[in-house]
């Protein structure tokens, strides 16, 4: 039994200062303090208690690139970041693109007892962008999110055939990394003031916009569920807003780093700030912040992309793209976008992503009978991220003061991470 007292608790009908009792993997009572002999007692001193965070976008690098991350280190990083469920992108080596690779990945995920690892599959065979992946076998194994993340489906005709097929599988989501390679070319950072000044080849925002527009048009025709990954431009936000206003079920996510930073941070050419999509201009960041507040963008997702220190200690243009994000996500989001409102914070970081991924035991308000997947988060605690549970250390927030810290994570009734509770 775990008893958490004096928390600001996210309930179905509002925020309560109350006591939460956990027995087994379930919340058994909220509100009245029981006799708690033998219980683990946590005094939350007024900080936020809500459903465990859910990340729709994580690269675990396992199998194939386990020097960067593996299921074990990635799970520890997730728990340390307050996550109780993460969606593992399928661009492993080999990729998850059919029944056998999906079953193998799901078995490895089930062996982890600190976080739900939700296995996503590719949209195309071998993630090569040519033929459809083995959807039925993956679906039968339990896969619901399909993405060629790292690349968009290159041809509109192929995407249209994919959507025509996947619309018949209930709960299946087409998740797109929106970037037109014929426009983006060999760019290394956002095409803007900084790239112009330093003469670095740019990644224009329009490379994303055209794929978002294309995908919305096809999804509208096919009635397929479309999810746009890591939205980064103001124009993408407009396209998604219009599609939703027209009644389409287009969902989307934004990363903490795109909310917190813009391309002005790139003047020093720090390879840890190199990621795709790139940090955009200030006006894009401003549009993303508005969109995550007002709900046009549904979810925060980290795009946690580990690369070993030696891989990042190279010239900017030769550095691999990606940044880790699991352990700083909640703090970065609270610091730069959603630190004011507990409900919206948990909507975007837990409830909405759990709904998009179809996870019944995640993203639930705290009521008797709810699963005990929880996070205790202090929105006012200041700290400076330094070292990480992840095998990789390529964080854009290392050395930067953030406000908001995960104090403890509870997964299926057990403490999966315990920080400085004080």
């Amino acid at each position: 039994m775990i008893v958490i007292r004096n928390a600001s608790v996210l309930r179905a009908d509002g925020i309560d200062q109350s006591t939460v009792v956990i027995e087994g993997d379930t919340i058994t009572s909220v509100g009245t303090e029981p006799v708690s002999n033998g219980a683990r007692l946590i005094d939350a001193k007024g900080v936020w208690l809500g459903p465990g965070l859910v990340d729709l976008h994580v690269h675990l690098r396992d199998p194939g690139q386990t020097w960067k991350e593996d299921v074990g280190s990635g799970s520890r990083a997730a728990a340390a970041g307050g996550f109780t469920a993460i969606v593992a992108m399928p661009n492993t080596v080999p990729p998850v693109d059919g029944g056998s690779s999906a079953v193998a990945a799901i078995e490895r995920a089930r062996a982890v007892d600190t976080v739900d690892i939700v296995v996503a599959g590719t949209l195309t065979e071998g993630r090569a962008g040519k033929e459809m992946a083995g959807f039925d076998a993956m679906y039968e194994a339990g896969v619901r999110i399909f993405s060629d993340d790292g690349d968009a489906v290159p041809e509109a005709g192929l995407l249209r055939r994919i959507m025509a097929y996947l619309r018949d599988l209930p709960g299946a989501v087409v998740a797109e990394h929106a970037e037109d390679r014929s426009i983006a070319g060999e760019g290394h950072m956002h095409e803007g003031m900084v790239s112009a000044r330093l003469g670095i080849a740019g990644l224009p925002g329009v490379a994303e916009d055209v794929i978002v527009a294309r995908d919305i048009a096809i999804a509208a025709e096919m009635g397929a569920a479309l999810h746009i990954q890591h939205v980064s431009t103001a124009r993408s936000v407009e396209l998604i807003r219009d599609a939703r206003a027209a009644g389409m079920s287009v969902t989307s996510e934004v990363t903490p780093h795109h909310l917190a930073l813009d391309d002005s941070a790139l003047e020093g050419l720090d390879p840890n700030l190199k990621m795709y999509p790139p940090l955009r201009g200030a006006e894009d960041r401003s549009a993303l912040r508005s969109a995550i507040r007002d709900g046009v963008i549904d979810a925060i997702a980290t795009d946690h992309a580990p690369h070993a220190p030696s891989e990042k200690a190279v010239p900017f243009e030769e550095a691999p793209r990606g940044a880790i994000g699991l352990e700083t996500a909640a703090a970065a989001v609270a610091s730069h976008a959603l630190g004011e409102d507990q409900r919206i914070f948990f909507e975007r970081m837990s409830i909405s992503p759990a709904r998009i991924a179809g996870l019944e035991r995640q993203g639930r308000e705290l009521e008797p009978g709810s699963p005990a997947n929880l996070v205790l988060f202090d929105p006012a605690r200041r700290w400076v991220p330094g070292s990480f549970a992840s095998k990789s250390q390529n964080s854009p927030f290392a050395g930067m003061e953030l406000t908001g810290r995960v104090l403890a994570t509870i997964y299926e009734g057990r403490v999966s991470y315990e920080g400085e509770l004080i």
Partner: protein
Amino acid sequence: MSTGPQHGLVSLRGLGRDRLEGLLDRAQSYVGSLVSSELAGATVTTAFFEASTRTRLSFDRAAHRLGAHVMDLSPDLSSTTKGESFKDTILTLTAMGTDLFVVRHWLADAADLAAEWSGRPVINAGVGRREHPTQTLIDAMTLRQEFGHLDGLRMAIVGDIRNSRVARGHLEAFPTLGVKLTLVGPTPFLPNHNPWGVRVSTELDDELGDVDVVYLLRIQNERGASQAIPADQSYARRYGMNAERLSMLKPAAVVMHPGPMNRGVEIDDAVADGERSLILDQVANGVPLRMAVIAEALGGTG
């Protein structure tokens, strides 16, 4: 970012007018001087990871004229040279006793990284599309010789500016020196953003009557520029500097080019070899200007 003299010359960005003019004065003092021994015993290493003839030779000659020993590293440019081996190369040459690096590389942060890895001053001899600071200073020196001053001059930089590190160096330093810049070219050749806040024009003929200097750039086909415009002669027609356009200039206006030139494209023979051309003066100033930058970086008193 390295800015102090003790760090060499990685970028012109943010350098004050005093420091820039001090370098030009020092360079001017070397004009006509034969041999100095002020850097006797010092080792200057030229590490060029991109093809270059005139820049490397000019640095080599400048270092020799100061009495320094020169080590030259020109890696096999036909093989792919990764940043990793770049680091190993810098560390090796540091261990061999390099006092100053002169670096040319296709990577934008190569000079910064060489300074960080070696702990030695580094002179940027052209990195990526970012800057080519000594070329910019050479051109400032040449213009000061021609006009007696820089303040108030108007310069049109014409051509493939988007791919030009020379232009980016000019954009960082010439406004500080009082020169008003206008960037001229077809839109695909202009920077897609304008963080410098300079004038931009797509019509060369509209600009010619107003400027003191026409600074021509070649089309950098090795950076894919040829795919950005039609593959016909339209560039030469719209932007090529020819005898007719020369006649549209003010009487005292001059023409410059950092080389290598593509005659018949951005510049005609009559212009390149004509009396308005300062192109050979630019080349001649390369050695004294680089002497000044090397001497400053190694703390020589001059």
